[in-house]
């Protein structure tokens, strides 16, 4: 029995896409508090404004992150959502689940919370949506004891790391993104749960330059798979593509007749470095000119594969616009081996180098990309103990305002103006 009339939301039960309204109504039959979610959202649809109060500091003992407090500003009307805190549960790498695990986790959420979720939050966590304050500790107790699972991050800490599904089901991943993500998540539990940074810090792990987890756009520390030898070519498969026996781009364009596959037009001419050509019926690549953009491999996945000497590029400093405008991550380490064999020791060393510096010089609520902007890339490169290389920039600077250190200039900066005036009248 509906507890509130929701004529506006009911409109969202129409149409072919799955309706969250229908779904919440179904949940409300089991947990009547969910009627109040609908009731309050309906009121927002009427008022065209949110009815959630600002913030509210709640959490579980010993953790500074993992729970986001939220209270209704109309609790008398909608007591079921008076407290509506978010619980962030750290997702397993790549977001694979056994139904056994997922059912148990959902049963736990039915027991302690609203029964509504986001699968998943934008950063990657399992978001359990809507918990009363007094239920937080019991939920956390059961989560750790019964499920062997833990909260993710929120606030000025290391946010829950995330990865593309990598080698688990993709032929292009140049390192084990799942293991890297899991290992570093375990290694940095303290940093995930206890905010100690100027602001949030995100790791993301993508297996190749297609970047399915948006590491380059969204993470302070992006590990993006790449290779440094030659693209592996199966010339027999190239011929099959040319003959039209294998669908181009893995069949991704099958919904429209784009005409017969044309390797010159669709692969060679679209190569951004123009490093490919045909010799007879063989595809040739000048790999020394290749920037590993992935286009040719995307179009002919059965004929072309990333090279065998694989690793990753590390880019740093991405963020959305708040505050200083959006930034993509900047290429800092062009190539590094990423391996569980050394427990990712070389990656950890870079992370800690950045953190040590950023925790000292970063301002309150300043993402590392903004700190990098403020001090400048040359300073950041020095902080990282790196030699500047052309790969760090798109192009060299076009202004001549170079900061020279005193010790770099013959005779230093101190001069005698009287001696100068003896030779040059004012």
């Amino acid at each position, binding site marked *: 029995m509906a507890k509130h009339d929701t004529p506006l939301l009911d*409109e969202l039960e129409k149409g072919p896409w*799955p309706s969250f309204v229908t779904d919440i109504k179904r949940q409300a039959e089991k947990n009547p508090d969910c009627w109040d979610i609908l009731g309050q959202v309906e009121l927002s649809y009427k008022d065209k404004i949110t009815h959630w109060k600002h913030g509210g500091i709640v959490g579980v003992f010993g953790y500074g992150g993992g729970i986001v407090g939220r209270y209704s500003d109309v609790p008398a009307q909608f007591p079921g959502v008076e407290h509506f805190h978010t619980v962030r549960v750290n997702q397993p790498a790549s977001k694979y689940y056994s139904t056994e695990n997922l059912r148990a986790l959902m049963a736990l959420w039915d027991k302690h919370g609203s*029964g509504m979720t986001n699968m998943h939050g934008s950063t990657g966590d399992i978001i359990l949506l809507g918990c009363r304050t007094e239920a937080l500790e019991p939920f*956390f107790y059961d989560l750790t*004891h019964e499920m062997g699972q833990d909260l993710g991050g929120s606030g000025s800490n290391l946010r829950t790391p995330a990865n593309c599904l990598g080698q688990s089901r993709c032929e292009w991943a140049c390192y084990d993104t799942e293991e890297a993500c899991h290992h570093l998540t375990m290694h940095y539990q303290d940093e995930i749960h206890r905010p100690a940074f100027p602001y949030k810090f995100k790791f993301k792990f993508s297996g190749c330059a297609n970047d399915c987890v948006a590491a380059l756009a969204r993470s302070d520390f992006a590990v993006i798979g790449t290779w440094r030898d030659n693209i592996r070519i199966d010339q027999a498969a190239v011929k099959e593509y040319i003959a039209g026996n294998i669908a181009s781009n893995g069949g991704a364009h099958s919904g429209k007749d784009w005409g017969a596959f044309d390797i010159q037009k669709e692969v060679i001419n679209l190569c951004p470095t123009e490093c490919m050509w045909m010799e007879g019926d063989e595809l040739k690549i000048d790999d020394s000119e290749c920037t590993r*953009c992935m286009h040719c491999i995307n179009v002919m996945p059965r004929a072309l594969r990333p090279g065998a000497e694989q690793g990753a590029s590390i880019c740093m400093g991405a963020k959305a616009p708040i505050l200083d405008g959006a930034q993509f991550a900047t290429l800092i380490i062009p190539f590094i081996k990423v391996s569980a064999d050394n427990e990712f020791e070389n990656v950890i060393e870079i992370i800690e180098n950045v953190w040590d510096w950023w925790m000292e010089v970063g301002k309150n609520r300043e993402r590392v990309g903004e700190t990098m902007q403020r001090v400048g890339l040359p300073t950041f490169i020095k902080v990282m103990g790196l030699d500047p290389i052309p790969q760090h920039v798109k192009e060299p600077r076009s202004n001549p305002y170079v900061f020279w250190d005193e010790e770099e200039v013959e005779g230093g900066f101190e001069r005698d103006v009287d001696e100068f005036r003896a030779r040059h009248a004012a």
Partner: protein
Amino acid sequence: MGYDPANPMADRITDIGPPHYSKFHPPVVAKNKGKWLWHEITQPGVLVHKAESGDECWTVRVGAARLISTELIYEMCDIADAHCDGFLRFTTRNNVEFMVDDKAKVQPLLDDLASRGNKFPVGGTGAGVTNIVHTQGWVHCHTPATDASGVVKAVMDELFDYFTSMKLPAQVRIALACCLNMCGAVHASDIAILGVHRKPPMIDHSRITGVCELPLAISACPLGAVKPAKATVDGKEIKTVKVNNERCMFCGNCYTMCPAMPLADPDGDGIAILVGGKVSNARSAPKFSKLVIPFLPNTPPRWPETVAAVKNILETYAGDAKKYERIGEWAERIGWEKFFEKCNIPFTIKSVDDYRLAYDTWRTTTQFKYTNAIK
């Protein structure tokens, strides 16, 4: 025994992290990890991955609202138990993937999904529109300028045909963030739907002393529009802040730092549309989304203006771009002046950048195309 409120630290377990992913891999994935050879999309929403061993992993991808109930998740588990050895996964775009190890198991799975009404639409692959990544909106957030789940539902209803097919020039990634904080990271999406505020914050002088650290509120403003001030509350002079409205760009960061500076408003708030971003490095470098429509009103429950704007851009692109061209690549090839003309979007002063590094976006060449913008 469960949690004992009288003794909250008893038996406490902390910092155990997530379960190891390998416990949740379907058997065919566990066996062939790192040994995949190639993949193909055999029909919209259905992928096959071939391993060196000769094994095949067939994946059926279904769309889902991001806001979902435990009841729906139990139903997903029923499906995975019946067809997929009890395993499933979620994608970074909030689709659900059901995997089987034999082609013969695909059709029964598809039939099962289809038998459940419109709860599990199959698609979201290749040169189509995949699920819209989005934020919380009015369902759960304290700073939104618009709703999220509702706008996404309305847009996806209209673009449904592009989710279940692969007839676009390339994949089109749509994302929605309900305010400029961009938890949904729309700043690098082919089409970005962004909630925006248009009124400066109000100042709740009677509360500000109790709930805000004034220096933090002042330093939160990237444009220095928030200044220290004094006000009289109940006959007493208090320290507070004032806002220089001319400098305010409505980012809402002051409200994030100071609950006594709310700026949401039924008429002020609405939606901006940005276009042409991408994350992938394929062919061209990753690009930011560019603002092409500065404001559309909030019109719940179905946001017709936003739905129409998104559909118009998508279909203009679909009719004009070359195979493989992402929306941003298309717009750059034809020129942004042509983009506005072809999409019949009025160009306004709001699309001319006046924020930091704006100069990089100004035209410093005599190369341009004549369009209907030149009278």
